[in-house]
């Protein structure tokens, strides 16, 4: 498996949440949630529908702010007012359906919002650089693209997810949030994505994963956070638990 050589990562990219509360009107979506995740690890958030997983992840990625509690990165308190701010700080989210725009071509998707420009007065879109870089970056994730002018909608589901992951990393993501990255994929496509997620550990990325697939989550992850009705009811390292234990706790 290809390994990225981007040497700009810090030694650690630690994320801590302390006693987080979040209400939506009367709904207590998160109650006193604390968690800590570190780089080079895959951290999995598990829980039923409506447990509060997306709410938690949305706070991390700057979509919402917590009502109470502290959010720290490398022991510094942070607060993001938008996903863009979080992204600039190195926290990226790959959304399942919104990851790419199908009718735009692959390189235009890869550089969307951060288009490289040529030097000179007109600052034109440097398509050659974009094309070349897109091919190179996707190759690092075992995807060979001959023609990056193809509509991104012609990529397979797994390739689209990987494109979004590759893009996040290329633009400096150190904490990567994946909200059910494989739930819409078949077995084969799903395996492609899983392999690439595992490879992120070697690149010292702090991966935060939401999943409903317990077997897959167990296989992939190093640490497990179990949420139920807005409470963080349990946390495990991989060696402290098993697929069956997780199943029991989640009542499945």
């Amino acid at each position, binding site marked *: 498996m290809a390994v990225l050589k981007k040497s700009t990562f810090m030694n650690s990219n630690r994320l801590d949440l302390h006693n987080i509360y979040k209400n939506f009107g009367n709904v207590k979506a998160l109650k006193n949630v604390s968690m800590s995740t570190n780089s080079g690890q895959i951290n999995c958030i598990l829980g039923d529908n409506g447990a509060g997983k997306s709410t938690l992840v949305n706070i991390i990625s700057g979509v919402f702010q917590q009502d109470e509690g502290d959010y720290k990165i490398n022991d510094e308190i942070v607060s993001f007012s938008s996903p863009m701010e979080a992204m600039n700080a190195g926290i990226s989210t790959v959304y399942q359906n919104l*990851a790419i*725009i199908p009718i735009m071509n692959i390189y235009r998707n890869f550089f969307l919002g951060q288009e490289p420009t040529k030097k000179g007065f007109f600052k034109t*879109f440097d398509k050659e650089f974009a094309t070349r870089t897109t091919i190179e970056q996707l190759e690092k994730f075992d995807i060979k693209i001959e023609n990056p002018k193809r*509509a991104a909608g012609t990529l397979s589901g797994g390739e689209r997810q990987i494109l979004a992951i590759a893009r996040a990393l290329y633009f400096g993501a150190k904490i990567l949030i994946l909200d059910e990255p494989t739930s819409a994929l078949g077995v084969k496509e799903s395996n492609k994505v899983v392999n690439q997620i595992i490879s992120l550990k070697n690149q010292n990325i702090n991966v935060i994963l939401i999943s409903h697939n317990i077997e897959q989550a167990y296989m992939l992850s190093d640490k497990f956070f179990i949420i139920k009705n807005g409470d963080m009811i349990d946390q495990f390292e991989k060696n402290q638990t098993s697929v069956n234990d997780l199943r029991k706790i989640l009542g499945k």
Partner: protein
Amino acid sequence: MFVWLFFAIFAHNGFLSIYGVKSYLQVSSEIGILAVGVALLMIAGEFDLSIGSLIGFSSMSITLLTIEANMPMPLASVLTLIMTIFIGYCNGLTVVKSGLPSFIITLGSLFIVRGLTIAVTKLITGRTQISGIDESSGYDFMHSIFSSSVKIADVNFPVSIFWWILFVFLGYFMLNQTQIGNWIFATGASKESSKLMGIPIRKIKVSLFMLTAFCAWFIAVIQVTTFNGADVLRGEQKEFISIIAAVIGGTLLTGGYGSIIGVMIGALIFGIVKQGIIFAGIDADWFQVFMGVMLVSAVLVNGSFKKKYIHEF
């Protein structure tokens, strides 16, 4: 896709003389200039139905300010430009703030602007048509920029054709060669994804509404200097015609894709058909039928086009 349409029609009118060429290029150029703005806005996922009324407003405002308020025509034109772009800004702001379909919002402004233009003009002058602007100061200057002509092979080609080429070039450059162009595509293709990638979709949309207003003003100045005055009804149906040209040129009604070169061909087809029917001695009513059929066929073709995700450029 456009090519066969083009040739189908072109062969039919192959007998056209250079005078014929001039006459349809002139018709095409006015639609073509509007269609550049309209297409860019459509690619960003919005419509502007108010541009026809903005042409009426602009031409009347320039004429009134010049004749009734005794302003030099260039000054009247600049003041009118500011007002027109401000209306475009209001259109855009209302659309992005309300989140309602621009189709409805600008249909509203079409009637508001057209109604106000007629009412105010009648109030001031008691008429709906005003001419005689050619005696005003600065008219010659404006006429030379917007409505003079260039002699080629003994035929006077109106300068609007060259303006059209410039609009096409700039539109093409912006859409295909710049970062803003990529943002315009993305805004129309997926608002949500674009927002997540930090693209200022509101700014883009509002700016493009201002651009369509600018195009309307530009056409208004051409018309005022060509017809030596204004009529409150100027620009009627231009909003639809420019949308038709954009759609025939391959612009997706749903936004996210379009080509400025395609739109140029759309405007060309429009001019060829319109003048061709006159030259061929067919009753001009058939023109509407023909355009309607072309519009529907183009939408059908564009629909299958989107399904295949052919977005390679």
